[in-house]
């Protein structure tokens, strides 16, 4: 059995392997998309959470079911579903995060057979009534998972699951901390592999793997690469090393991210005291910094912007970056509307920005080389 980063790399290259093994052993696997479904509930029900992703390969089958004028990431996920790549998944939980995910749920349900489906409505507002509504939605989800898993999720076991997932997040943060120094002890390419691996195995194994990796990485004398420029990457979904790898090859270290399959997913924990469902609702709706959730501000424009984006600026300071790349997937409306604001906000704070709007495909990514190099030359 491989250890540490090797373990992660192998899993990254064959993501479904462990889930398939577990299934042979009689476990049930629950697929979920986006950072919003509470994995804690899935774990507490004795099920294995598995994050659904796409691929940068050309999309073919999905075009018979989905318009080509929508988020290529979701289209690619559906493409894999139709091609039976997610056959090992027993059930699906899809949240209402964006229009694309929301609507694709029904289509997936119609054409890809799984034995269990659950749609989780997520409010867009951060009001007390919204948290109350969402906690209720989580309760409904809990009930349906209990039924599917044939178990009762007691408060105790839910709290235990939350604890384990909090630990998972803490480990990821610890690992991320090792990127602060120059050169970063772990490269962004490695980090992406770790993230992808961590989201395809049960959380207990994931924790073990992460501890293993932290041990390995902390003993490194030097980072794998030492580049003059330190970058932050902001954006929606990056689930493949291709883009990050290209950036690193062009001569930069990506040292911190604000991505859906990156820090956005693990920066904040669930509070342990009190009603676990309310706490889960609070973390997901209140603390995941995704443009799909509205942030109220009754103050000035500046206060509003700080409220929405200052954490990115803080990341940039803390990790000492020289520039930021906004990686926005075309047709992703919530991110597209925020992008000019994020760009200006960071520029205002003295951080140079490269704004890319991508088709989520290998060919389009390869075409960015000159742009990335020119950007690096610009901020050197």
């Amino acid at each position: 059995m491989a250890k540490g980063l090797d373990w992660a790399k192998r899993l990254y290259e064959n993501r479904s392997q462990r889930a398939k093994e577990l299934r042979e052993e009689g476990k049930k696997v629950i697929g979920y998309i986006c950072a919003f479904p509470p994995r804690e509930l899935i774990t507490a029900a004795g099920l294995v959470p598995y994050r659904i992703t796409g691929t940068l390969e050309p999309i073919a089958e999905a075009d018979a079911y989905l318009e080509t004028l929508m988020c290529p990431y979701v289209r690619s996920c559906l493409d894999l579903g139709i091609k039976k790549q997610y056959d090992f998944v027993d059930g699906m939980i899809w949240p209402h995060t964006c229009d694309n995910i929301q609507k694709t749920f029904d289509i997936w349900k119609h054409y890809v057979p799984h034995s269990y489906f659950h749609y989780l409505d997520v409010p867009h507002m951060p009001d007390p009534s919204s948290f109350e509504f969402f906690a209720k939605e989580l309760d409904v989800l809990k009930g349906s998972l209990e039924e599917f898993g044939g178990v009762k999720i007691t408060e105790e076991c839910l709290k235990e699951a939350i604890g384990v997932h909090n630990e998972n997040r803490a480990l990821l943060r610890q690992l991320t901390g090792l990127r602060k120094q120059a050169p970063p002890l772990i490269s962004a390419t490695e980090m992406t592999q770790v993230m992808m691996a961590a989201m395809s195995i049960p959380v207990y194994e994931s924790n073990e793997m992460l501890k293993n990796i932290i041990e390995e990485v902390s003993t490194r004398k030097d980072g794998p690469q030492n580049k003059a420029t330190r970058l932050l990457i902001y954006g929606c979904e990056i689930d493949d090393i291709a883009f990050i790898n290209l950036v690193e090859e062009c001569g930069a270290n990506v040292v911190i991210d604000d991505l859906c399959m990156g820090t956005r997913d693990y920066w904040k924990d669930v509070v342990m005291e009190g009603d676990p469902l309310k706490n889960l609702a609070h973390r997901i709706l209140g603390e995941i910094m995704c443009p799909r959730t509205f942030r109220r501000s009754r103050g000035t424009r500046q206060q509003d912007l700080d409220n929405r984006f200052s954490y990115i600026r803080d990341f940039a300071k803390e990790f000492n970056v020289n520039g930021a790349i906004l990686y926005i997937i075309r047709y992703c409306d919530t991110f597209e509307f925020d992008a000019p604001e994020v760009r200006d906000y960071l520029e205002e704070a003295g951080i140079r920005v490269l704004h890319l709007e991508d088709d989520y495909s290998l060919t389009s990514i390869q075409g960015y080389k000159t742009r990335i190099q020119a950007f690096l030359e610009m901020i050197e």
Partner: protein
Amino acid sequence: MYFAGVDIGSTMTKVVIMDEVVLACVIGPTGAEHRRLANKVMEEALRQVNLPFDEISYVVATGYGRISVPFADKQITEITCHAKGVSSLFPTVHTAIDIGGQDAKGIKIADGRVVGFVMNDKCAAGTGRFLEVIADDLGLRLEEMGELSLNSKNRVEISSTCTVFAAQEVVSRIAEGTPIEDVLAGLHEAIASRVFRMVERLKIERDVVVTGGVAKNIGVVKALEEHAGFPVLVPEEPLLTGAVGAALLGKELTLKALESGRPIERGARRLEVATFFE
């Protein structure tokens, strides 16, 4: 000390050799089978100044084909090089629009440095290739297209965006008897409006300099001015700004290294055939 800049574009390969001033500049085709023969253009430039290759202190390669040039010390993107070249010619420049064979770019410049850029290289519409394809189909020389179009009284609209279909549309328009200048004016406007709209994302500020091979086409330049609402500047030889910038950047790097006593980072350079794929 001598410095060289090599700009291997999709259409043209340009080489500049300079010390304090530009000593030689050679423009050769990149196209078709010449593609890999960038070294020949270099040799021609060396011949002009009568220098052996080893005398050149530093060679910077730029442009679409910069990636695998065995005789360069360093690769720098055409965006940085253009900005450098343009601001050495026009210190007042704030926006550069470069329309080459394979792409169109907008570069925002402050104090001679790039502060922002946009670029299109996905679709041939709005690039020099568009004009090449049309010129080819009409049997025109690229040099005459601009002037010809200025005679137009009644610009036609080209309804196809795609270069391939636009070319066909143009040919049949002309067969129908539409005056060639009207068709050309329509084409130039099509390119200008496409490029202008892209560059507008940078918030265009004066002075605006237009470079790249398409800047030689007065029709496109006029159409760009129409969009901007003010005159733009065009260098005497708009093809060379990238190569000049590359040479200047090489010079800067060398001088900086000498000043600080650091060794100059050099490539193991050989004056031989360049490849296009990594």
